[in-house]
């Protein structure tokens, strides 16, 4: 390839890239339908969890992360408050994830939603999840409408924390785009 051709290709890529910047990533229908071992029944897919609800919140989970434990009450409150219109699911994507851990932790934490077991990190890879408590809101088409932290609070659950996930759900249910749609996550690494 001549240098001028190479320069044209680079220029084309640079010009075209911004067109994709605003595109919302989406989970493929295969992944939405793919069953994972679950704390609640032998296996569940994300579509099974969502059923006919408008939105699905997928929160990546770590059994050993203190930040996860700190955020449990807020996550449970959200699931109870929005449960009619929004489905919630936790995904244990650590390499050590197991059905036994999922069942034990769901019972210990009184989660009103299932924990899916994904030790291969299929969902984590698809949704760019690296940290526990990382939460993604998917719409009916499987598009990612919000991704990030549950709030801007690391572990102290202070009253003036910005409740990012709750605000995103309120905006989406009102037919608006969440602002911000991407936030920072405070959580431990998902051990892969």
């Amino acid at each position, binding site marked *: 390839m001549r240098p001028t051709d190479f320069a044209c290709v680079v220029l084309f890529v640079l010009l075209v890239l911004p067109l994709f910047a605003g595109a919302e990533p989406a989970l493929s229908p295969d992944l939405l339908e793919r069953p994972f071992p679950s704390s609640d029944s032998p296996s569940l897919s994300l579509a099974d969890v969502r059923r006919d609800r408008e939105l699905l919140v997928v929160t990546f989970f770590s059994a*050993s*992360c*203190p*930040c996860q*434990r*700190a955020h449990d*009450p807020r996550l449970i409150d959200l699931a109870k408050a929005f449960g009619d219109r929004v489905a919630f699911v936790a995904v244990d994507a*650590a*390499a*050590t994830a197991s059905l036994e851990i999922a069942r034990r932790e769901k019972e210990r934490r009184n989660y009103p939603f299932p924990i899916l077991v994904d030790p291969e990190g299929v969902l984590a890879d698809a949704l760019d999840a*690296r940290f526990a408590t990382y939460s993604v809101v998917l719409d009916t088409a499987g598009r990612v409408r919000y991704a990030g932290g549950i709030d*801007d609070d*690391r*572990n*102290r*659950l*202070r009253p003036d924390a910005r409740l990012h996930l709750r605000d995103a759900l309120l905006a989406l249910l009102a037919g608006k785009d969440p602002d911000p749609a991407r936030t*920072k*996550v*405070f*959580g*431990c*690494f998902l*051990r*892969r």
Partner: protein
Amino acid sequence: MSRCRSNEHRRSLGLLAGLVLALLPEPGRAQACCAGAIAGQLGRLALHEEALVGLTLRAERTLGSFGDDGAYRPYGSEALLFEESLFGNVRLGERVQASAFVPLVQNHVRTRREWGFGGGLGDVQLSARYDFLFAGESVRIPGIAVLAGLGLPTGRAPEETTHPLGVEATGRGGVRAWGGLAIEQGFGPAFAQLQALLLHDVRRSADGREYGGRWGYDASLLLGASLPSELTLALVARLEAQPEGARHLWRLGMSGGYPLRSWRLQAGFFLDPPFDGLGRNENVRLGIHLAVTRTWT
């Protein structure tokens, strides 16, 4: 009198109860997340932090010294060092941290015949850290980081002092460069870090004499744990040696860290164990430090 003593007892019991309560788990709270940086190393950014600035106060007392034969000899005089340092650290991208450390140093020495007090700006340190893999990122592989730094001769060198006790000396007099590796891993609330640095004092000459030009190393093992009250404690054992100069010294320390929303409190102490064979051609010191750090996420 007895009432006074009873008040003292009550105060002591109150303090003890406060300490116990601080260490007990509290409902609705949790351990500090990803706490390796909280207690162990001053001025290091924790996983979710983008920048920090802090102030540390340090006080050291020289207890004695190890001779060329490795025997410990107590110091007959009083030698104290105080240091107030400003430090800052900023994250560049996800895996790089760059930090600066600016110390102000004061020395106080008193012998039977004379005493002296002096000080000034110490040696400014610039350092960087690159985390190839963060601790906890992998189940099998521990966190691995490359460290590098430079100590600049901004302080006053020992040979530049005029006081007979050399109390104005606040620096090494030459450039010191270092580089090395840190390996660390978390095990639930506990964490361990092994660090090895290669040190080099750049050669310099002053008053017709040659200084520096020697290599050394600094190796340390840190073991720590996050308590349920978010307090993080760490124990550290460190060996600094300069084989060419026939110098080495063991140092033991303990430190604690406590996060307060956007702030972090750290405190600790260290001791160079004054036992024969645990050092050579080095002073033996006992020290404490206290640091307050403002962090940004």
